[in-house]
């Protein structure tokens, strides 16, 4: 896997570049890593090519939404909000925690 390390501030720029290259959004994945940090992996794809971008966030600072560039991203971002408790700014469709109505909040980061 060829992953480019970025930051929460530059992910929008990278997504923009991907959009111009006519890549599609394959997925956004959150992974719990050490010390309460959460790693976010964005995957874009061409026909045969995959491009991965990754940054680490502390789970408390809001991250920017890419859903105005890639509309389907709102589902992934709402999922990340509901399961990991990360606030995502400016989503085109914000469920406000109502996509997965789990019994406990942010279950994936619980020990």
């Amino acid at each position, binding site marked *: *896997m060829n992953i480019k390390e970025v930051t929460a501030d530059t992910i929008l720029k990278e997504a923009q570049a991907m959009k111009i290259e006519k890549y*599609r*959004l*394959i*997925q956004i*994945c959150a*992974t*719990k*890593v050490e010390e309460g940090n959460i790693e976010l*992996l964005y*995957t874009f*794809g061409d*026909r*045969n090519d*995959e491009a*991965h971008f990754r940054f680490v966030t502390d789970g408390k600072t809001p991250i920017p939404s890419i859903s105005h560039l*890639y*509309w*389907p991203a*709102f*589902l992934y971002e709402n999922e990340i909000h509901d399961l990991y408790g990360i606030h995502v700014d400016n989503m085109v469709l914000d*469920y406000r925690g*109502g*996509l*997965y*109505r*789990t019994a406990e909040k942010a*279950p*994936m980061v619980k020990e």
Partner: protein
Amino acid sequence: MATRSVVPFGPQHPVLPEPIHIDLVLEDEKVIEAIPSIGFIHRGLEKLVEKKDFQEMVYVAERICGICSFGHGYGYVDAIEHIMSIEVPERAKYLRMILFELSRLHSHLLWLGLLADAFGFESLFMDTWRIREGILDMFEESTGGRVIFSINKVGGVRRDIPDEMLKRFVKKLDEIESEVGVAARAFLEDSAVKTRLCGIGKLTAREAEELGCCGPMLRASGIRRDTRKLGYLAYDDIDFDIIASDVGDSYARTEVRLGEIFQSIDIIRQAVSKLPGGETEAPVKGFPDGEYMTRIEQPRGEACYYVKANGKKFIQRMRVRTPTFANIPALTKILQGCDMADVPIMVVTIDPCISCTER
């Protein structure tokens, strides 16, 4: 202006075998907006990686969904095999491919039945499910299970399928092919069926691409993309074309899936004729360390499996992006402006697998 009303659709609805809830904003009989909400079957199985080791997780992955069970198991073990650099024997790859295509057959036949049920053609529903039982018998004979058969393991397949049995299956598939041919006439030529499908839920190629569709939904809108063409398993050795249509309505989706049924039968025929001998599993030593993302073509479209491990018995993360998850944005789009009476058909034509979606 007509008054607006909100009609809740689901989670329990006669046409839905699985619970999904959609709030339909109606203006008279026209749907103005559709807002899906999921979570009725959210189990949280991705967190089970903390409690089950990487070998046991195969069983959990297979139970993401009972319809695409084989593919989920395969996607997960493929990611693990890449991380651990395990060279899977050729025969195991071919057997996996044959079982994968059989799974596609059973899934598409199941969908055709549900579609027939959605437009109220009960005898056609019964007939396609009767044909499907032939495929399930093959699963049962070769692996022991009907729907969830756990034949994948890290390193290969759990048991070999004898050549004679596979030859018998190919003969049986000839019969199934002609039976599907008869049912296909009802789906594609019956005038009453056509009135329920033609022009319903239209999606252009541009919209399909922008909404991130995948699988038959994308191909029915004219974009020729099939993850099998990446050449995983032994798909490189097989000669097949991508089946697509340029129309983009519910009829086109039916046509594409019917085409894929015949295509899968053809792929199985080719695979059985080229099947190499030898071992069916490779030894597994140690624990996975690293990360990998596998992309495969499930019956419903492209699925991604991301696995991250750090050299321990328990992996850190298993993430599955399922095809229905990618097709839900398109569902909300095609529902806008349709008639209330067509909503069940449209929900069915994306071939929703809610269990996959919510995990």
